């Protein structure tokens, strides 16, 4: 019963978080790769509600700016590795 209640509270919290969430765009392809609420808290960024496998990195800049940098998101391509026989 306690677990059931906790799951319901978590689901409700996630539903509220998703109302305020942002679309995440792949910095390489420009495609939408997920949706999450990003919260800076105690020196970290908390990512809430994300359901996809997403990488995070500072985005390379075409214009040098000292006052601002961007953190962007990207996803790996679909796995398509060749068969590689053992040596």
């Amino acid at each position, binding site marked *: 019963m306690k677990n059931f209640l906790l799951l319901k509270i978590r689901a409700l919290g996630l539903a509220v978080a998703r109302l305020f969430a942002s679309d995440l765009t792949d910095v390489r392809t420009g495609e939408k790769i997920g949706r999450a609420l990003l919260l800076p808290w105690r020196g970290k960024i908390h990512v809430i509600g994300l359901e996809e496998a997403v990488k995070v990195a500072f985005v390379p800049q075409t214009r040098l700016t000292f006052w601002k940098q961007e953190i962007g998101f990207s996803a*790996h391509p679909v796995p398509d590795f060749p068969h590689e026989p*053992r040596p």
Partner: protein
Amino acid sequence: MSRVLNAVLTHVPPGEIARSVAWWSHVAPADSLLIVHGGPEAEFGAIQSANKVHVPAARLRTTDHPRERQSYTEAYAAVSEWMCGRDFSHVYFAEFDHVPLVADLNERLLGRLAAERADMLCHGLRRVDDTGWHHYLYHCQDPRFHRHWETASVREDRRVVLSMLGTGAFWTRQAFDAVARGREPFPMYHEIYLPTLAHHLGYRVRGMADGEHWVSNLGDFRGRIRKARNEGAWTIHPVKSLAGLRWGGG
């Protein structure tokens, strides 16, 4: 000549297993179906199937599968051992609630495997290294995790980690046996461990591609079999009980 073994992993009571066996009889002859039993040993004798093996592995019987790092390693090893001396060329390994919807499933899987030039096909395949994927983050807090693939891989890029939905996967016999021979150096969740091991052993792992939205880790699709079949799905997951369902109906 290809011959597919359909290995169905189950822990449900013998009556429910009998329904699975009857359902699978529309897909494969009895000698190509193996019941892989992970339930109570006392129930093993009551299972009505031509072929069956019991797997008494504690890490198969988890309740919170990702957190307890559920393992199929012992189940794969049992299937591989059972196949010794038998002429199967491929293995379709499915959980009991991953249900086939087409009679020619094995032929379709063989065709897809050939078209992809793959050694293994699975659902929900994705590359997850250096991402926020929950299962990956849970594993890479252990420094042994990436270190293991550094030493175990034949690949140039040894950081690659793959994840799949572990409910149903189609293998060449060679790849299946090679993965079944592997021994987990420390506990890893099978949805991460199996595709990553296959990849680092040099095998080509690809996604099933079709009907992916009818294979989910959540819910119960019991009442939606007809719709899934009409939309062209080959299989469906999860269907927790086949009671009252009939092949071709739904």
